[in-house]
């Protein structure tokens, strides 16, 4: 295959996949150079993606309070008194509409694990902590990241408090937890 045709293949797919061209090279060279046999698997770059303008619906206020005011809310069921965080607009146990309540943002780690490996979106972040946190004032556990300098110092039962990122995106990663001092 003429070099220009090969370049065109890589250029086309790099643009379409929004990847640097050098990440695709030289994976497809054997095919492009005509070195494959007629019945060898023919492989091509591809991807699936969809863009969103996603609405949080009845949970919107939870994210808006974090985003604008750095406040953590829970959702309290007026019937059973249970407080949900992550919040729910209705109580799945009683089918009652919940009410927003302020949470102090403190809690304790019920169980945590150190991720030494993760998806392609997080591979650069390892090692990091994923934990179930029992928030003060809430009745159920929240899965969350705990950020601390030495992840090996994490302990079950460790008290933690919510922290807010200075630059917010409107997603749940605007908050994380860190060990409560002393």
């Amino acid at each position: 295959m003429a070099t220009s045709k090969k370049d065109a293949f890589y250029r086309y797919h790099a643009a379409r996949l929004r990847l640097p061209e050098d990440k695709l090279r030289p994976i497809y060279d054997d095919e492009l150079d005509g070195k494959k046999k007629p019945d060898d698997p023919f492989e091509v770059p591809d991807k699936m993606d969809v863009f969103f303008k996603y609405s949080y619906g009845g949970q919107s206020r939870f994210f808006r309070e974090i985003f604008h005011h750095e406040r953590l809310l829970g959702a309290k069921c007026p019937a059973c008194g249970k407080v949900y965080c992550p919040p729910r607009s209705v109580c799945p146990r009683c089918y009652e509409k919940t009410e927003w309540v302020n949470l102090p943002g403190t809690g304790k780690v019920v169980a945590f694990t150190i991720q030494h490996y993760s998806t392609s979106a997080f591979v650069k972040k390892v090692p990091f902590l994923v934990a179930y946190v029992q928030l003060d004032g809430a009745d159920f556990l929240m899965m969350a990241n705990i950020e601390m300098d030495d992840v090996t110092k994490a302990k079950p039962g460790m008290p933690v408090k919510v922290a807010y990122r200075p630059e917010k995106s409107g997603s749940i990663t605007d908050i994380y937890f860190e060990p409560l001092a002393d």
Partner: protein
Amino acid sequence: MPEVAIIGVGCTNFRGRHPDKTYFELAFDAAKAAFEDAGIDKADVGAAVYGIYNDFFQRQYQPDAFVHDYLGLPPIPAVRVNTGGATGGSALRIGYAEVASGLYDIVLVLGVEKCADCFDYFTKNPVPEVLRAILYTSDMTYDNPIGRTAASGFALAVLAHMQKYGGPTEEQMAKVSVKNHGNALKNPRAQSGMKITVDDVLKSPKIVDPFKRLDNCLYTEGAAAVVLASRRKVAELHPKKPPIWITGLGAALDWAFPGNRESIAEFHGCRLATKKSYDMAGITDPLEQFDLAELHDAFTGTELMSYEDCMFCEPGEGGRLIDDGTVWPGGKLPVNLSGGLIGCGHAVGATGLMQTSEIVWQLRHEAGARQAPNARRGLVQSIGGTLCAWTVSLVLERMD
């Protein structure tokens, strides 16, 4: 007398990648083998159920419609089932209902999964992209953005279990890996047959505490198919091979936000589903009544927790059964003679049906070098989702 029997099974090799086959081509191989095994023609099939987990893995939404087309089954009805790791078991459950209800006499239940066409161009490795595809099936608002993986969910449950009961230990988990990799050596379809030691497992790279690389199953490609027939049809067909009857079936879908559960240290839904299958089949003492079991060992620690959820022992005692030989080949209740997910591989939609096929071969005494002597009754457990949200439990028996 039970209503539904398995009269044929077919299973492809489980391999890290089948670059020479698409998902529908893998499905074809399994279906053809199952029809031959059952001694039926595709024209005899009344309906189909397809277990396919991840649309990204196949690079296709609604892949079931195309499987159906490539199998030449139109226009008979078919549905697709997806319950994560439990997909194979769930497909079998729907097939069971279609036959037991009298709607159809013969139903094809087929599971298939690709995965390793996913590819991370930055690390030149499929795995990180496979994990990313899986994480689209976790909650997208609260769980997906924090970088957790399927392994970390199960790791948290195992850690909570260790805190509550003082076990299992990392050595006990490593023994499960040694057992299942070893069992797979006798399974020609298996991806990861290996003779390894406890030390090999403990020294393998950490993935997600407390799991090391050899505590985890690998993602795999493959297909497995099961042909179900009604009691009436079995009497009419007189199949050459002994029919294997589904005598117990239970299922559950627990809270998918496990923080909503009473406890994350046990899989309550799994226990309830298993109990339901036992009640239906009249199982009161599983250790005595089962000859073998295929459990969903996506991770070593969860196989040990399953011994407890399947009531082979009391809660907290799972580790004892790997220590005392009970679940090893030749033990009182061998678990995962196929190699399970750790040894044979985890081709998600196909996994539960591969494990069902294994029990069928074992009960027919066709399992060759890994045959459990005089096996008459076996258990298949299919679980999936965040911290075992879905469970399907099946009791299979030979009754001739």
